[in-house]
């Protein structure tokens, strides 16, 4: 078991800064999710931990060991790729035992370990099949089995659920969390999907344009986003951000701040900011109202499906409890309250 420490890690590809001064620690046995949009540097950061990319500056430690320049195979980690990277010409059994075979584990020991991990992941009946004969979910399990069969100190996962359908993704999310608890190892998990980040991570590190925006527990990141980027990236629908001056409608007089309010914290009532409803989206269990304020700003209101909702074109009044307003510096975008 091991922690993973990023010490001022920077990665440049020519003039492009892919990862900019990452400096944080993934604790031993933690499930840390690196979250961010495409191109934010999260996969590059993961690949640097794996040893698949060289660092331009800084250092990475796995456990107490500085691993700069250490070959991937000697870092005591396993990685699950987005494409699963299964060897297409090998059977499921051969795929799972490949890391053991590469490390010259004796045949009987290999057989026992493969049988054990196949049993854990429900792959017993599929051991003699080729990857092309498996469904997406089954392939994903084989990739997981290949990763865990060696019991490495750290698991790296690069968007392992993104090739699964929505139903399978939900089921696999829960299984991964259980697997983490069962194995008690350090997981570093990369995703652009905030739902995965919120539901799986012990902590979430949000990245944008190569730099760390915020790191904390999922609820903390949701409740107290460090800046406008995090506020809008976490949450679906995203947090409403009112430009400087527009917050006056919600009682914020300071013109040097932008005001954020989550859709579920905007309330419809007889008093408050006048607006009119432009669009009503029903998701079955809830409704999203797209409302335009008098100044032209658009906000989204989330309502329970059971309540009577206004229809498109209706005039409404919006209000929000002051406790639920987030204030960000108008220039830097950083949180001020």
């Amino acid at each position, binding site marked *: 078991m091991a922690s993973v420490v990023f010490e001022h890690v920077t990665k440049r590809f020519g003039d492009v800064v892919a990862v900019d001064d990452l400096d944080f620690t993934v604790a031993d046995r933690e499930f840390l999710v690196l979250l961010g949009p495409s191109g934010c540097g999260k996969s590059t950061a993961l690949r640097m931990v*794996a*040893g*698949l990319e060289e660092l331009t500056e800084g250092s990475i430690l796995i456990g107490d060991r500085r691993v700069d320049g250490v*070959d*991937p*195979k000697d870092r005591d*980690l*396993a*990685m699950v*790729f987005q*494409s699963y*990277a299964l*060897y*297409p*010409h*090998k059977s499921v059994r051969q795929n799972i035992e*490949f*890391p053991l075979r*590469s*490390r010259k584990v004796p045949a009987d020991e290999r057989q026992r370990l493969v049988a054990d991990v196949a049993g854990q992941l429900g792959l017993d009946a599929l051991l003699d099949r080729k*990857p*092309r004969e498996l469904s997406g979910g089954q392939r994903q399990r084989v990739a997981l089995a*290949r990763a865990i069969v060696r019991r490495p100190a750290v698991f790296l996962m690069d968007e392992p659920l993104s090739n699964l359908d929505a139903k399978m993704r939900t089921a696999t999310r829960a299984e991964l969390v259980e697997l983490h608890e069962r194995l008690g190892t350090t997981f570093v998990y990369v995703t652009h999907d905030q739902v995965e980040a919120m539901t799986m991570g012990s902590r979430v590190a949000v990245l944008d344009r190569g730099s760390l925006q915020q790191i904390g527990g999922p609820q903390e990141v949701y409740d107290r986003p460090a800046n406008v980027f995090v506020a809008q990236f976490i949450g679906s629908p995203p947090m409403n951000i009112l430009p400087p001056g527009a917050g006056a409608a919600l009682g914020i007089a300071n013109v040097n701040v932008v005001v954020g309010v989550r859709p579920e914290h905007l309330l419809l009532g007889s008093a408050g900011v006048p607006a009119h409803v432009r669009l009503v989206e029903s998701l079955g269990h809830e409704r999203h109202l797209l409302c335009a304020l008098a100044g032209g700003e658009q906000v989204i209101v989330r309502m329970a499906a059971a309540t009577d909702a206004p229809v498109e074109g209706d005039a409404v009044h919006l209000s929000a409890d002051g406790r639920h307003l987030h204030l960000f510096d108008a220039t830097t975008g950083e949180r001020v309250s």
Partner: protein
Amino acid sequence: MTRSRRDWLLAFGFLLPSLLVFGVFIFYPLARTIDLGFYRSDPFGGLGRFVGVSQYTHVLGTHAFRRSLGISLRFVLLTVPTGLVLGLGLALLGHQRLRGIRVYRALFSSTVATSVAVASLMWLTLLHPSIGLINQLLVKLGHERIIFLQSQGWALLSVAAVTVWQNLGFTFIVISAGLQSVPDELLESARIDGAGAWARFRHVTLPLLSPTLLFAIVVLTITSFQAFGQIDLLTTGGPLHSTEVLVYHVFTRTSSDPSTAAVEAVVLFVIMLGLTLVQLRVLERRVFYGE
């Protein structure tokens, strides 16, 4: 007109240009050659009397035919494995992410753009006993001069070396294209799984490259069996028939004894067809064609 009849006509219309080209340049000459083999040539090279399959059995037993066939087989064995291994090696080198690698790739593939005539003339000069660069180097190294193209021991080896060089561009390009299709993630995964460079090549690259290698083997074998230009320009089949491969043997007989030449050409065709089928059947068992 019924729909199926219309479809047939339409299909025939689309096929017609190809059928015409293949018909005129492949099928008719092939049929004519097979037919020619049933007649014995007269002393002036004209078409003589019909002798049926007896001419085939006769030609197959002649010393000249068996000698040429043996030389052809040796030539294939000398050129195909060497060309394949060198092409694979160069393609693996060219696949590295190094500064200026594109220049090397262009150099490695350049022989594909060199005609047989140019390549042969170039090597004729390089291998020349007195003015050739290779002999000059040998002398400088304290070695005796080697009469590459005019000695029985060296001629076939020399022509084979030129052929390997000539085919190297093709092999390099084909295998390089195959290497491009091996996903990086598989190799990266193997690295993390603990596989060293050789194990990654043996367990990941080679199996995924197998369809490309099979294609290269089949094409190189056919090309080697059909080698003609370099032999005509470098050795004219000599010395003492030591480089007279089957195609060249057929060529030398065409004017004096076209019927025997036709029989040998048909036999060559059957051998190549058979070899290709055997290669496909045997090697396909070891080939992985992906999903």
